[in-house]
């Protein structure tokens, strides 16, 4: 069966985000003075083949923690759903 894992990887609070700050400055230049802060995040979407939701979750968490996330700087959140029409 197929499962879709969606992971959002974000910098921990307080860690400086140069990309976000660069964007914010551009927004200010453009007149968007209401934009007080910009933080950019990484969103990964992974299609997993697994025998069960538990199996997919186990693999998904391993992938997330071993590869996608730098635990020194980042935190993450995720959703895991069975892909529609993949019961075969």
């Amino acid at each position: 069966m197929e499962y879709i894992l969606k992971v959002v990887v974000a910098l921990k609070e307080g860690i400086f985000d140069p990309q976000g700050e660069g964007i914010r400055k551009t927004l200010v230049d453009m007149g968007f003075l209401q934009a007080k802060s910009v933080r950019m995040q990484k969103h990964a979407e992974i299609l997993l083949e697994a025998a069960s939701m538990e199996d997919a979750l186990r693999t998904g968490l391993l992938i997330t923690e071993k590869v996608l996330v730098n635990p020194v700087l980042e935190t993450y959140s995720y959703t895991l759903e069975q892909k529609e029409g993949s019961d075969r």
Partner: protein
Amino acid sequence: MRFGVVVFPGSDEREIIDGLKESLGEDVGYIWHRDESFSGYDAVILPGGSSFGHYLRPGALASHSPVMEKVVEFAKKGGPVLGISNGFQILLEKGFFPGTFLPNESLQYRCGLSRLEVVRKDTPFTALYEEGEEITLPLAQRYGRYSVSAKDLEILENNRQIVLRYKKNLDGSTGAIAGLVNENGNVFGIMARPERAIQGILGGTDGRKIFLSLKGGLK
């Protein structure tokens, strides 16, 4: 002795090979990052550059390349491993060093010379320098800011793992750390590019002693 240079997509191995072969007359071989084994090398070098385009994080994807398990094994057996710039990042991602690399504090790509102090000379990589010696090496990096917790910094200092420090810490590295060895002292990460300071015609020769120290130690 025979140097093995690991090549990832995006690696800058050219200057290491040229510098070692043409300038120092050394025997050098390539190790492709997908090779699961290699043999016949006395020292392994992870080059600078942008392996995998710095995708995900600098060095992150390269640290999972098949060859890295063999590099770990080589290091466990005491083999000397030199990680230059992106190579340093790859070694850190693989777990040889604590901490992380952040964008330079200036947020600029730093391309220029840096003055470093040799803090520790009893390593296979710095044996030919003097303790306290000041050397000049080129930098070429955007994510050169080494950052480590106070707790890990204390461990690094107690273990004498800090080998090089910046005289002027332009990019905000914790403790002005410019080069580290692992606890065993046989794996060395350096953010500057010693291979660009082998041939005098390119501006300096202070990098030669890193490669010559390695050679001397294995004779």
